[in-house]
């Protein structure tokens, strides 16, 4: 059984490529299209890592991280934020909210895998 990673991004192609890279590395991947959708996936199942975009409709990444931290079952789940170099403020906000790890967009799948494997075992 691989570890489960929740990938949250409003872009279907990002989810597809990230999912492809992670599955290739032996992880199980579930997806969320925005914060609201992603929260609904945090329904008690074991999630070992969350990767979330910041800019999303309905519920943005920062709010999503804060909400996740309120859930007892997921408060220790590491979260990787997808930030942009132009948004240092967002990165600080994300870290304050509890997402300590980040990957700067645009990234190559390999960079994402490196960040993930720093945090959890495949």
């Amino acid at each position: 059984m691989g570890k489960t990673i929740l990938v949250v991004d409003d872009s279907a192609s990002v989810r597809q490529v990230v999912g492809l890279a992670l599955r290739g590395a032996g992880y199980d991947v579930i997806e969320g299209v925005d914060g609201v959708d992603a929260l609904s996936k945090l329904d008690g199942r074991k999630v070992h890592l969350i990767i979330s975009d910041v800019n999303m409709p309905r519920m943005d990444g920062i709010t999503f991280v804060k909400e996740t931290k309120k859930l007892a079952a997921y408060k220790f789940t590491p979260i990787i934020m997808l930030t942009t170099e132009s948004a240092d403020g967002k990165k600080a906000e994300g870290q304050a909210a509890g997402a300590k790890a980040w990957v700067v967009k645009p990234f190559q799948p390999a960079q994402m895998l490196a960040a993930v494997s720093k945090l959890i075992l495949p």
Partner: protein
Amino acid sequence: MSFEDEMRSAMATFVVEARELLQDMETGLLGLENDTDPEEAIGAIFRAAHTIKGSSGLFGLDHLVRFTHVLESVLDRLRNDEIAVSPELVGALLPCCDHLGRLMSAVEEGRLDEDPALAAEGVALHARLEPYLTDAAAPAPADDAPAPADTTTADAADTAAGQGAMHLSLRFGVDCLRSGMDPLSFIRYLSTLGEIRDVRVLDGLFPDAAAFDPESSYLDFEVTLETTADVASVSDVFEFVREDSEITVLAAGSPAADYATLVTGSGELAGAVAEVLVTSGALTPRALEEALAQAGSAVEVTGTAPAAPAAAAPAPDTQTPAAAAPAAVAGVPAQSRTGGTAAAQPPATAAKTVSAAAKTPAAKTAAPAGGQAAAGAAREARSIRVDALRLDRLIDVVGELVIAGAGAGLHATTNGDETLLASISELMRLVEEVRDSALQLRMVPIGTTFSRFQRVVRDVSADLGKDIALVISGGETEVDKALVEQIGDPLMHLVRNSMDHGIESAEVRAERGKPARGTLRLNAYHDSGSIVIEVTDDGGGIDPEKVLAKAVERGLVEAGASLSEQDIYQLIFEAGFSTAAQVSDLSGRGVGMDVVKRNVTALRGMIEVESKVGVGCTMRIRLPLTLAIIDGFLVGVGSASYVVPLDRVIECVELPPNSDLRDCMDLRGEVLPFIRLRSLFGIDGERPRRENVVVVEYAGMKVGLVVDALVGEFQTVIKPLGMLFGHVNGIGGATILGNGDVALIIDVSMLVRHYGERQAERDLVVAR
């Protein structure tokens, strides 16, 4: 699926997604100027650029990333109110959307590297955006500016790498577990960079059971790593925890002073650290001892100023209180010589916990992005994308189901089995529901097609030097997807034509007392089984006399022919009415009005023109709701069956006796011309004693169709006629009856229009 296939599929997703985002971006940009509260729109536009850039990076499309980056920077400044919305800005951004569209097309065609021509275009577009970027901020991407600490240590490491083992001192923040950062995971990751020779766990900060918090991290680690990687890449492993932790990476052969600083900086763990350093062979006890003595004095001299050579450790690492340092320095050498531990050391300060807590920024309240709830995105969450081909297949099968159901119904009727009839009728009710739902799947609001014209009107009015506003209504009207795709081109031509020839120049408008700004309206609505799309302008209208004169000149009609106004308007759709010489380069893009008409007719629709000279003109396209299934009315002529679209049927009456030589009848005081299908289609055989007339209406004109038998309503699945029969007038398709026979579907509009010609033919047949 192989990896390559999956990537290709992801790339296809990307292209589709990017196109949608570009459409959103364009719509957003066009709305910006009129928007009273543009914040939401700007957010959406920014997000579109941001997403395209992010995805492009994933696919390694660097030229797209570069181009979008500048766009994103400008939009970011717009979002932060650093620059204001202006027509010039919108004018500079719109071509960027187009350019991105072209770049996407190139990607779609498999050209993943930058096209030189497109690159030049991109540079020109960037130049237009230049004024909206700050002088310095824009061209400096962040990766040019890594943390300065890393650069200095990297230099040191380059000289030292490979000469021995690297030493890492890891003081994880007490809260790291709470953030999901597992120290062991990082240490394990280290092994991907080299070979871990030794890991020492320092538990000196482990509290008493009473004070122990199971969610906190108390353990510290000293790691000896054999690696060829440089210090910067090794310390990058810890970038996620660096902020709340104290991570020191010392390359093999680092100056002894650096080790001394590490030891002195370790507070109450200093003794243990010194021991590890010596035992791991990083340096000799004497070297450390000497360095510590020196460092001790250095600390005393410089006070609390951060010690410069503190390797990759962030500045706060050196915040050891000045008072504690000499004590530690004094105590350590003795202990390391005697092999003692640091356990006896009095706790100077709870350095680690204090620094970790102090550095945790007070939780800032992030502005919730409630306003970002764009309707479109919300829709995405609830909808799924389906291949149109699968949908067509479903509709096709549902069509077959309808036919099969009708067949079963026929048999049940023939057998007279009451219970079977009852269940068949229930079945048919459900099948009809399935049919309606299936057709509903293909219905899309026409608004998306309409909003494309915002851009067209903007660009074309700029080209023509006319001020024209586009007013859209009825965008929520749902139309079959196939129709939407095919109506775009004719609509485009009508819009261009109205702007070009319809709406007058500002001077003429002023003369006629009209507002300087011309108005073009796009409207859509449902009207008794049809969808109606209107293109209305408040221009000069069509002058019937001029049209007629020109038609005569072109030899389209005989001079002196008397035509109704509507007939005259229809002349503008005749091939050969307009010639290249008269068509401006705008409308004259190879599509004449005759092509518009042909396209609309091919969709079983028609165009009406309503015009008033000097006031304006409305082009009204009338189309069937769907192209797949219709409710039909089945009639019989001899042994043949025909289907008349039910929404055209007004009523059925009996043909009055003694009508043989007539071509019209009296319908309650009204003259009703009729067409004999028997003669029209040349059907042999005895005429029945009594014939019936199906009264049909199209565009306000009533005509009777004379048939032998009225069979009744019939669910008709339209099977298009083959290429060979494509030009047969009066037949819109075929269908299969329940008993397997083929029935032709009557195209009422064609029949009504060619009714005059048919009449002549009929006369011939009758005369024979």
